[in-house]
């Protein structure tokens, strides 16, 4: 089998899932919205991030609170460390990569077992202008660390995050999008997972007008494991888009994708794209991806598109599942038949729905915070309408011609 580099750079993509990568903005024409990768995104709400006109400068600050043993630096664009595990895959990403001035580099030295999370606080101060960012998180071989990317405030922000997970290392990342309602955030997260390394990536998207996050993973050696988790709650008018790509380009690697979302209110919109490619050389791959959406009210829309392309006959397991639906009447009936009122029954089921994902997050404080955030979302649920398990009128009119 041809080497990894040969495969990636071959002129003819090995599959339709193969992403187009380039550092040159000119390689990505301004999207019209008809392109497969843009067709779900409300381009007119991106404030020109995808266009070719100059943009006013906005303000986004990045502050690092590092755990002992972890270093954080601000390095100017052009630093040779940038781009080791990253190459833009769409126009906004390429524009961010071409436009950022200074990025953040988080380094975990080899063999360091870091206790406690390193938190990068990304704060938007002005959504009127555009800001661009770049982050590199590098975990040395056999090191172990937890990193939180915490986004809040008002911003029009495009950035890229690259993760280099060394051989035998373990990195757990949680990216929280808790933006103000006027925020627009587009971001690519690209990870390269080393031999026998473990990468856990959790996305929590709650706030922001438009959030489009594209996490992707590839492997630089056999034995790597990636777990991509996501949790989102779309409110009226919110567009939350997650585009996953797992590139199984090495043998004996494992990936799990599990995204769960709830949507409520008019024009609440979520998009989940789950692309998994198993290349010919990636024998003994074990992958499963899943997306579940709960539509809590009328008027909300969840798009969910899993794509699995298998180019080798020798996989351990490969599967996907996608379900979008309302809360199950039979669940609600069962809980209500035990005296639990409808609102409470719904909350119980939704909490349970997200709880299993939240339990997997490695940062206890974050578990609490996300649980609270979900509770706040649930408290905003409007007078729960439309469920047939609700109380019914005493009696329907007598049936036509009651039997004697």
């Amino acid at each position: 089998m041809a080497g990894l580099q040969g495969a990636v750079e071959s002129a003819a993509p090995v599959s339709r899932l193969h992403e187009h990568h380039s550092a040159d903005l000119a390689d990505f024409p301004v999207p019209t919205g008809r392109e497969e990768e843009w067709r779900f995104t409300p381009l007119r709400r991106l404030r020109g991030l995808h266009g070719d006109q100059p943009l006013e400068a906005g303000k986004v600050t990045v502050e690092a609170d590092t755990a002992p043993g972890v270093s954080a630096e601000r390095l100017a664009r052009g630093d040779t460390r940038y781009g080791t595990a990253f190459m833009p895959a769409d126009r906004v990403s390429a524009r961010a990569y071409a436009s950022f001035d200074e990025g953040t580099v988080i380094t975990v030295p080899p063999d360091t077992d870091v206790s406690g999370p390193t938190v990068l606080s990304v704060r938007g101060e002005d959504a009127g202008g555009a800001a661009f960012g770049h982050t590199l998180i590098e975990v040395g071989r056999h090191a172990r660390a937890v990193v939180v990317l915490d986004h809040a405030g008002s911003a029009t922000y495009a950035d890229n995050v690259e993760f280099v997970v060394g051989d035998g290392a373990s990195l757990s990342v949680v990216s929280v999008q808790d933006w103000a309602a006027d925020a627009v955030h587009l971001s690519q997260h690209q990870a390269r997972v080393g031999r026998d390394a473990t990468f856990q990536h959790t996305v929590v998207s709650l706030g922001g007008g438009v959030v489009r996050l594209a996490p992707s993973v590839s492997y630089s050696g056999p034995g790597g494991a990636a777990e991509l988790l996501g949790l989102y709650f779309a409110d009226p008018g919110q567009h939350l888009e997650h585009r996953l790509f797992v590139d199984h380009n090495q043998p004996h690697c494992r990936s799990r994708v599990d995204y769960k979302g709830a949507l409520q209110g008019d024009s609440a919109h979520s998009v989940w794209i789950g692309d998994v490619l198993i290349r010919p050389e990636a024998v003994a791959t074990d992958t499963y991806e899943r997306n579940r959406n709960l539509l809590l009210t009328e008027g909300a829309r969840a798009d969910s598109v899993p794509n699995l392309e298998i180019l080798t006959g020798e996989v351990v397991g490969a599967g996907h599942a996608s379900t979008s639906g309302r809360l199950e009447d039979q669940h609600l009936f069962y809980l209500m038949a035990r005296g639990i009122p409808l609102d409470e029954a719904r909350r119980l089921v939704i909490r349970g729905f997200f709880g299993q994902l939240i339990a997997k997050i490695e940062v206890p404080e974050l578990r609490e915070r996300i649980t609270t955030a979900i509770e706040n979302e649930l408290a905003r649920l409007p007078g729960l309408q439309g469920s047939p398990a609700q109380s019914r009128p005493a009696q329907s009119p007598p049936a036509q011609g009651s039997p004697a």
Partner: protein
Amino acid sequence: MATLEIRDLYVSVVDAADQSREILRGVDLTVKDGEIHAIMGPNGSGKSTLAYAIAGHPKYRVTQGSVTLDGEDVLSMSVDARARAGLFLAMQYPVEVPGVTVSNFLRTAVTAVRGEAPKLRVFLKEMREAMAALSIEPQFAERNLNEGFSGGEKKRHEILQLELLNPKFAILDETDSGLDIDALRVVSEGVNRFGAQPGHGVLLITHYTRILRYVKPDFVHVFVGGRIVDEGGPELAETLEAEGYEKWIKAAAGAAA
């Protein structure tokens, strides 16, 4: 004194194609506290429909008649209000609810039914004792509701809920089906414990006479074609055991012809 009164009840089921089909055709039944009533009937006679209609399942539409609990109109209540008023339905097929633990569920239900949250320590003790009485392993409290439970485990959990929620009337929908002999005994003991307490009545719906060896009914009703066609004491169950439903099915068919 508590009374569950069902009068001239007609119920239709609405299927997926929105077609309405009449299942219950004039059920009359009065259950008082201190009484255990067994409803026995062949498959498809409408026994479960009676149970679900009383509990308020949205699939069933009451077209005529009344159900009252101590004079209160049950049919005008929402599903949860019926449970809080003192009705409990032990389901034939309890559903799995992912991510909701047994202990969380029980505490939420107990809080709703009692109108106030029990102190956590008191509640946990109460729950553990009730679980022990039903031979339920303590670790089940942290498992997701009914998820991966065996048939017998699900039924024991139904009875656990019955004992903790302490309703006036328990309607047991084929709680005995699919149970091995040990589970049947444990479940029956739970039903008997419940029935023995003052203010409690039981409506036991079953296809088989087997459970009646453990739970002694005061009244037996034969249910065929969506209504009660015969009534008697425990001796009626013995007749059923020996002869089956044949003669009532024939009689009902004859009457309909």
